[in-house]
């Protein structure tokens, strides 16, 4: 296959020209601010690492950092456990049923995160659906405090980020030829062992991609923790926002942002490596 074909039949110059507007936008809206806050974090007011020192030596900030990572991890695992069966269902259904399930998965993706998060307030508040139901069933005496807890953040974030888990897994499940599970079954594997030995390992690239996306988005997620988390369930992103907009400590906010960025890139690199290893055993 010639290079021309790989590039969709466009010459390099044409392709570059078409990509130019986006490249400019990225430069102005992403690279420039990035350079801005990285330099702010080390140059304001004078060349210093004091902001980083403050972050890494404060037990409070380190606890927020750790709890953010833990929250992102829990959300990722929950999304995987809940999303995988749905991905299997989607990959097996055909016709109208497949269309309905796909729509159910995609509609939340098209609904603004803000709307979905406020919906969770209605569900979790003191006179919300969950409390009302539990009280009328006589299972609890007085309303539980669910809103403004880490639990609420985890539940809502899992729901919000679920499509990012389901879609890549579904796509990798679809790419497994149907003879493979069939052959395994015919060669003596029970349904469970077909899954454990064939379906699951062959879906790992999708699982990795889904986990990577959910984990990274969860790490920097702002809206849901800010609304549902309250002051006790702070995360890195709410901390950044607080430092920048409430305390106007821009250099410190910048330093936290840089740490979040490095953390994210590091995790992405690890996942990429794992994906490559996985990909090699599949396609070498």
């Amino acid at each position: 296959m010639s290079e021309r074909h790989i590039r969709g039949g466009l010459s390099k110059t044409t392709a570059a020209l078409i990509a130019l507007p986006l490249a400019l936008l990225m430069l102005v809206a992403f690279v420039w601010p990035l350079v801005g806050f990285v330099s702010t974090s080390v140059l304001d007011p004078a060349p210093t690492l004091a902001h980083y020192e403050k972050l890494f030596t404060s037990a409070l900030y380190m606890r927020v950092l750790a709890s953010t990572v833990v929250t992102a991890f829990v959300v990722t695992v929950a999304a995987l456990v809940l999303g995988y069966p749905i991905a299997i269902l989607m990959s097996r259904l055909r016709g109208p049923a497949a269309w309905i399930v796909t729509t159910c998965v995609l509609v939340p993706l098209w609904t603004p995160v803000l709307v979905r998060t406020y919906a969770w307030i209605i569900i979790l508040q003191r006179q919300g659906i969950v409390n009302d139901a539990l009280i009328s069933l006589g299972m609890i005496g007085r309303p539980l405090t669910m809103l403004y807890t880490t639990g609420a953040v985890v539940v809502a974030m899992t729901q919000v980020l679920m499509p990012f888990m389901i879609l890549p897994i579904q796509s990798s499940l679809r790419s497994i030829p149907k003879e493979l599970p069939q052959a395994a079954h015919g060669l003596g594997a029970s349904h469970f062992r077909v899954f454990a030995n064939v379906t699951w390992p062959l879906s790992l690239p999708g699982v990795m991609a889904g986990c990577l996306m959910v984990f990274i988005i969860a790490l920097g997620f702002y809206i849901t923790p800010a609304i549902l988390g309250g002051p006790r369930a702070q995360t890195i992103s709410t901390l950044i926002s607080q430092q920048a907009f409430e305390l106007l400590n821009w250099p410190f906010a910048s330093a936290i942002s840089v740490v979040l960025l490095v953390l994210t890139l590091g995790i992405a690199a690890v996942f990429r490596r794992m994906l490559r290893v996985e990909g090699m055993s599949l396609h070498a």
Partner: protein
Amino acid sequence: MSPSSLGEGGSAALSLRNLVKRYGKVTATDSVSLDVEAGEFVSLLGPSGSGKTTLLMLLAGFETADSGEIRLHGRDISRVPPNKRDIGMVFQRYALFPHMTVAQNVAFPLRMRGVAKAEQERRVKAALDMVELREHLDRVPAQLSGGQQQRVALARAIVFEPGILLMDEPLGALDKKLRKHMQVELTELQHRLKATVIYVTHDQEEALAMSSRVAIINEGRIEQLSTPRDLYDRPASPFVGDFIGDINLFDAKVEEMQSGACAVATPFGRLLGTPVGPAALAPGAAVRVGVRPERLSVDERPTGGVAPAHPATIRHTIFNGNNVAVHMTMADGQELWATVSPNDPEANLPRGATVHVSAAPQDVFVFPAGAA
């Protein structure tokens, strides 16, 4: 590896009784009965959509029959799930597990059966020896050629010594030369293992070359089950005649019945033929007449034999190397094909020449009309 369990088990290794499978209004398997002896190589041959794949899926257990019975070495497996059926299957596109090495692929059925590690290793090596692939143990399927993948799939299907081997067009993805080679290898391996094989294919040459018997499948039924030779020499229906080899087919009417033979009236004249099937044909009955091209005699002059000869005009001739195909038009416009030896004078006749066509009564099949 001992070939025992693949071969032994009384007389009928596999026995199907009135197997029926419907999908909505479509009857994919229409009351199929079949007995396969231990050590036999039986092909299910039919055009695509004939129901041969459904039959195979029923055997393997990936589909469940609506009614009827499947017995494997005497044991009724009609309702047994695939993993408990003791059937080795080779899939059309091999279905090797891409994330496992060759050794792991072949060990898979043993691992699922809880065979001890050392024993697994020994049997995997023995099976790979069988297919001459021992040196590729640690490769993954993507590193192998199509023919090698085929062998791994085969080793994986025989390693656990199943009661029967099912093969679904296993050579379909190989190029023609390799296919011929693998045909020979497969039959040799089958003989060595004394394995009972059910082989699905739409390639009639392949079925004839490899099978001890061939079941011709059409519209969900077995049209005829016989040896390759018998299918060719004595087709039970125009469909079989047409599907196995080449045949000239045309409509006619019975003129009179004689003992074991009948005279039929065709638009181009009278022919003597042999009735096919148990049904008695009455004079006046509509029939289909079939004659193999190589059984038609083409002569420049009437030979004066017992068989009636009819004039025909040569349209063109095709040189095929070992024979020459002669395309002719009869007096009424009916077209016939004949094949003659390249050394025959008739092989070099020009277009438009007149010849006389005849056939011996035993070579003229008279099928009752209504047969497919």
